[in-house]
């Protein structure tokens, strides 16, 4: 195989073509963890491993986790009726088909781009419930499966109608099976941020957008007629997503100086997530969302349930260094990640 030269002039590192990276994200991650202590010899072995794997794996596979879509039929219960399983023909219910397609995109992104085999990396079935309850204004991950309400048609419309939302919820499952970040305070804000990161990266991937062309909004597709044009979060400018009498004003900070330290929202998990969200945006604008998400995913596997912001920044920078060494992200990426967090006031001293 051939390696392309890295874009930068500062070093002689190598850049693995994306079609290879696609097959190798997992191998890269596993070796990345070893490579912190790796000698040159190990590094050469790893290069060989990359070549061998790419020879053995003919093409990027799609994920094989089975999709199972249940219709709650407006009851407040999960798994009321199984309406579409993997490979079933299209259903007469457009919401069922949409969520089936969206979760397929998410599954395939994790497989192709990050080489993760479903939520648990072991091909776990993807169970989704739609039409949950009556005019239910929410979507959630309960530890095993995803559940989506239809909204009330005024404030919010169907939560399953948004790839952002589907990817965000599935990503909560991925976080549960990797870092297991506790859903409160800084670890909870990181948990939320990782879900927004995957939500937006997958949406950009599916829409063939780049960091410059994406809107960086979360939840804009689910705003109903009374909130039309608003969004729930902006990763580009946290704190500007909405301002209206129904929801009040977007209170996300974009810098540690405005950090929320009150008790609401489990210690501000959907609030302080604005800070790492903005750092992801800044990183993506510099090296591209596809490279940034690889760094974030690598770091996620190195975090623990009580990781705080400072520890996460260190893990992200370390992951960037490992991926540079792997040739999977451009040289200079660790500095880009550091600068992005410096711009939002992290790490704190």
């Amino acid at each position, binding site marked *: 195989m051939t390696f392309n030269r890295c874009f930068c002039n500062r070093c002689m590192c190598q850049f693995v073509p994306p079609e290879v990276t696609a097959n190798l994200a997992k191998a890269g991650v596993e070796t990345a963890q070893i490579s912190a202590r790796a000698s040159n010899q190990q590094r050469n072995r790893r290069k060989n491993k990359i070549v061998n794997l790419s020879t053995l794996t003919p093409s990027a596979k799609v994920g094989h986790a089975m999709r199972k879509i249940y219709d709650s039929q407006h009851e*407040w219960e999960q798994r009321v009726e199984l309406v579409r399983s993997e490979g079933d023909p299209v259903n007469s219910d457009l919401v069922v088909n949409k969520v089936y397609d969206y979760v397929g995109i998410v599954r395939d992104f994790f497989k192709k781009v990050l080489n993760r085999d479903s939520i648990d990396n072991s091909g776990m079935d993807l169970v989704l419930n739609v039409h949950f309850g009556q005019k239910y204004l929410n979507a*959630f991950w*309960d530890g095993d499966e995803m559940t989506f309400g239809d909204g009330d048609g005024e404030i*919010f419309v169907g939560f399953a109608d948004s790839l952002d939302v589907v990817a965000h*919820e599935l990503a*909560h499952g991925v976080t549960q099976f990797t870092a297991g970040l506790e859903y409160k305070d800084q670890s909870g804000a990181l948990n939320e941020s990782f879900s927004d990161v995957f939500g937006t990266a997958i949406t950009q991937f599916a829409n063939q957008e780049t960091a410059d062309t994406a809107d960086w909004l979360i939840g804009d597709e689910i705003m109903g007629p009374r909130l039309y044009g608003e969004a729930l979060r902006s990763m580009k400018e946290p704190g500007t997503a909405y301002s209206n*009498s129904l929801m009040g004003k977007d209170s996300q900070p974009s810098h540690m100086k405005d950090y929320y330290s009150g008790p609401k929202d489990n210690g501000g998990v959907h609030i302080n997530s604005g800070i790492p969200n903005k750092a992801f945006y800044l990183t993506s604008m510099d090296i591209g969302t596809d490279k940034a998400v690889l760094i974030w995913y690598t770091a996620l596997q190195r975090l623990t349930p009580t990781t705080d912001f400072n520890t996460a920044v260190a893990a992200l920078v370390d992951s960037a260094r490992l991926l540079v060494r792997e040739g999977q992200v451009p040289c200079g990426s660790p500095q880009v990640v550091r600068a992005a967090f410096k711009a939002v006031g992290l790490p704190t001293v």
Partner: protein
Amino acid sequence: MIINFSCQGGFANLQIAFSVDTSELSESLSQELIDLVERSHFFELQLQQAAPKFSGPPDVFVYELTIQDANKSRAIACNDVTAPPALRPLLARLQKLALEQSSNSD
């Protein structure tokens, strides 16, 4: 009947509340709420042993509901995973009232 309701969290991170003395409401709304409370069997309801975990699961709404009626009073907390289905119609109606109230408040 005095009802104190709050709902926070969710994907949209709503922070809403609704407090009312049903005797101060219109006849129809008052009756509607009294009926919903009755049909939920609020005062007899068996809650899951597991109280809502403070730290999750992700994106669920956390509901707090206190109702005083005659000489009965009960306060409960639950979330989207632990909420008994029988309580759901009451929670949904109170959530709507809380949202209407916040949209009229300025």
